[in-house]
């Protein structure tokens, strides 16, 4: 599993997205909902306790005075007298009944029933002449004891409280009966009429006596009683309400407060249904997000990978798309720059190799017929000697030396050899120019063994002769050498006509162009640069009153050290 997740970018992204999107959801649903429910239920329970206390107080406010009034009336001589038939006492009777009614807050009707169960005197809602069975219900219960008794009412009477009135022999001569009807009970419990709470008053067997809503008594009380019977929790008939129960000790009745739950079963089911929907939606979003993200991230990396492979196989022209501005975009840019630079370098090195080859080719071509020429020159030398024309003999000898130097196998030769070559060349040119210039070679002995490319000084001297001192009668050319750190600088100076600024610029610019008449200089520069790199080459200077100096800069390499290398070439 872990391995599988780590194997690809896509699955990693998917699981990350899944985790970050589902975890808060799960936390919300699994922790928050129960906490919310618990909170709301605690709040309801708190409220209910307060409301329960209120109605408990209300009920006690009726039952406690009633419990005192019942024995008081039952043992009152006037009451006993009235029930045993002494009509004269009624004048004193009613004030007593009204006093009892006042004490009990006028919540109960009061009646005096005779031994046959017929009401003889009554106030506050009970009719005189009404009949109760003495062997049933409240009167029977009152007849069994000398204490106040409570019994279920009938029709609109919620409950009765009664006590027997007994004569001296202890037999019941009548009953004092308090009756609380529904209207009175409504008043009694009206303290909660503004709230969402409903009240049930149940008898000891959990049968309904009173309910603040008519439907409660029939259905809810039956459901609660059934739940109590089955030993279940009190959830009522629909599960939409919470119930709180308190027993009233005087009467043994139960007060039940019904409060609507904030989180009903339907709501919780709906909540969980929505949660599952949300989860499913999250999952879909995860797939979508992972797909998008992975495409966004893995595509450029895959492309980079492919491009890298192509580069490895030698396809340097491969380029990545640069359509992004993020890190991956920069990576692509860097890759492109790298391959561009690499291919450019390659191109340059190929070009250089090609040029080197061309130069070699030219040099080899130049060597094509040297032997024939050399032999010819030898013949010419002997002809000059035998015909007594020493100039021709000398020229032929010089030219032959130059030719021999040209055809030696070594490209790098000691400076001394090159200087000899220059000397021979100058000799030839002196014949041509009828000694109108002199050439002085002033190279210290120390540098004579330094290695230089073959035929690099001759073109310089040739240039100084042809473009410098050619038109003069007292031309002077000086060839000198000096060392600047590890660089050997060989300078050819003349006192000729100098160089135009244009030519100077051309010669001193790093990118020299072939210029008519200075091809020799250009070739020398190229050869040096090809051998030793761009740090070396030729530079030219020209004085304002004529004369020019062309310097060749070369690395200082001695013959001994580079003998082997030189002979390889």
């Amino acid at each position, binding site marked *: *599993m*872990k391995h599988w*997740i780590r194997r690809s970018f896509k699955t990693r992204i998917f699981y990350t997205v899944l*985790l970050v999107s589902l*975890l808060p959801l*799960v*936390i919300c649903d*699994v*922790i928050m909902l*129960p*906490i919310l*429910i*618990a909170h709301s*239920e605690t709040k309801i*329970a708190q409220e209910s306790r307060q409301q329960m206390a209120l109605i408990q107080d209300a009920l006690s406010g009726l039952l406690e005075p009633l419990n005192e009034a019942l024995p008081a009336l039952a043992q009152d001589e006037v009451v006993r007298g009235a029930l045993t038939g002494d009509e004269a006492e009624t004048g004193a009777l009613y004030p007593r009944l009204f006093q009892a009614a006042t004490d009990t807050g006028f919540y109960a009707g009061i009646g005096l029933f005779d031994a046959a169960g017929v009401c003889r005197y009554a106030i506050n809602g009970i009719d005189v002449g009404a009949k109760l*069975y003495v*062997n*049933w*219900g409240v009167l*029977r*219960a009152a007849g069994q004891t000398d204490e106040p008794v409570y*019994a*279920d009412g*009938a029709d609109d009477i919620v409950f009765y409280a009664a006590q027997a009135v007994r004569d001296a022999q202890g037999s019941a001569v009548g009953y004092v009966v308090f009756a609380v009807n529904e209207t009175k009970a409504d008043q009694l419990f009206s303290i909660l009429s503004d709230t969402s709470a409903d009240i049930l008053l149940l*008898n*000891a*067997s*959990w*049968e309904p006596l009173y309910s603040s809503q008519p439907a409660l008594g029939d259905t809810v009380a039956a459901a609660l009683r*059934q739940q*109590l*019977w089955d*030993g279940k*929790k*009190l*959830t009522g008939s629909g599960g939409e309400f*919470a*119930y*709180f*129960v308190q*027993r009233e000790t005087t009467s043994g009745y*139960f007060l039940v407060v019904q409060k609507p739950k904030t989180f009903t079963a339907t709501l919780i089911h709906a909540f969980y249904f929505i949660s599952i929907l949300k989860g499913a939606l999250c999952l879909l979003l995860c797939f979508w997000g992972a797909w998008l993200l992975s495409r966004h991230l893995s595509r450029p990396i895959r492309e980079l990978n492919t491009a890298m492979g192509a580069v490895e196989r030698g396809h340097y022209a491969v380029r990545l798309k640069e359509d992004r501005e993020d890190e991956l975009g920069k990576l692509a840019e860097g890759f492109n720059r790298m391959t561009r630079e690499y291919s450019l370098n390659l191109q340059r090195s190929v070009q250089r190799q090609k040029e080197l080859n061309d130069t070699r080719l030219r040099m080899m071509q130049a060597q094509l017929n040297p032997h024939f020429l050399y032999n010819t020159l030898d013949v010419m030398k002997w002809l000059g000697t035998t015909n007594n024309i020493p100039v021709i003999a000398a020229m032929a000898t010089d030219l032959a030396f130059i030719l021999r130097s040209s055809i030696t196998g070594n490209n790098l030769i000691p400076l001394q050899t090159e200087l000899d070559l220059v000397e021979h060349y100058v000799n030839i040119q002196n014949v041509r120019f009828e000694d109108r210039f002199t050439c002085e070679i002033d190279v210290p002995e120390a540098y004579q063994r330094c290695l230089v490319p073959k035929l690099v000084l001759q073109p310089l001297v040739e240039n100084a002769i042809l473009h410098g001192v050619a038109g003069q009668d007292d031309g002077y050319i000086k060839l000198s050498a000096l060392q600047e750190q590890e660089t050997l600088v060989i300078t050819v100076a003349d006192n000729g006509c100098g160089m135009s600024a244009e030519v100077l610029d051309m010669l001193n610019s790093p990118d020299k162009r072939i210029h008519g008449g200075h091809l020799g200089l250009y070739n020398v520069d190229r050869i040096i640069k090809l051998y030793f790199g761009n740090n070396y080459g030729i530079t030219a200077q020209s004085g304002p009153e004529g004369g020019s100096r062309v310097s060749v800069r070369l690395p200082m390499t001695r013959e001994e050290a580079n003998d082997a290398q030189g002979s390889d070439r």
Partner: protein
Amino acid sequence: MKLRATALLLCFVLAAAPNYTFAESVDDYAPADNGRLVIYTSHKVEIYQPIIREFEQRTGIWVQVVSGGTNDMLKQIALESDYPQADLMFGGGVESLNAYSDYFAELPADICGGLDTHAAVGKKWLPFSLLPIVLIYNRKLVTQPPESWADLLDSRWSGSIAYAKPDVSGSSYTALITLLLAVPGEDENILRAFYQNLEGKLLDSSGDVVGAVSDGDCAIGITLEETALKGIAAGKEIGIVYPADGTSNVPDGIAIVKGCAHWDNALTFIRFVLGEDVQRRLITTYYRHSVLSSLAGEDTQAQEMRLLDYDIQWASDQKSSILTQWNALAAGE
């Protein structure tokens, strides 16, 4: 590793989520098993409820009531015979209780001391109240009401007798047997004469009889005294005739389910409903007659009523054959 840690965290979160269910603990309020009683009843709620509530108030025993039709309740008891849920069957004609006597327990002999001699006493059931069959008539339509069962065969009442199907209504069947007992002659002939006099007019329910007579649909009817008296109390203009040749006084009964869980409470309940307080209320409140001989003096109507010697066992045994004859008459029409 990381994955395992995440899973662990998730488990912890799930376990930590509060399992908060909320309802007050009220177990103490319900009585222990010995303070309970389960009653199956076919009585109407206005009869059983006051009686049971008075019983609960007097004894503190909690009663659970399951109510329904007599046959449904008895079938239910038969169905549950292996694991009886009910303790008592309260109500239902004693013929029906007799038919299901296999499912009822034998009652102690001393429990039925004060019962009226008229009330049949079975070993497995006891009568609770007496329900005579009476004739009723529309007081505006009928100036000379029928006086006896024999009058029902008079062509004067052809097609104007409100009578429910005896194969559907228990009281109708009782009435049919009473007719056979009261009118001398061959049962088959009496049945045919009575059927012909009905002219095929048979009501679907015994509850429709009072309405049919008071509406003038029928001039006279045959029903239970209780039903007739309730109709009069509700303002129906009908008169009652106690047949001069006597009537049946078939009781509804009460029986304890065999193997019940609350035997003592069931006996307490039987003693209570067969006690004077409840029996007196039958007379004063429920338009019924008491099964107690001690209360005979308080029941003037019962004193005047002439009763036939109605053999419940015989009626029960003959039920299928008589109904077969009856249905043959209906089919032969």
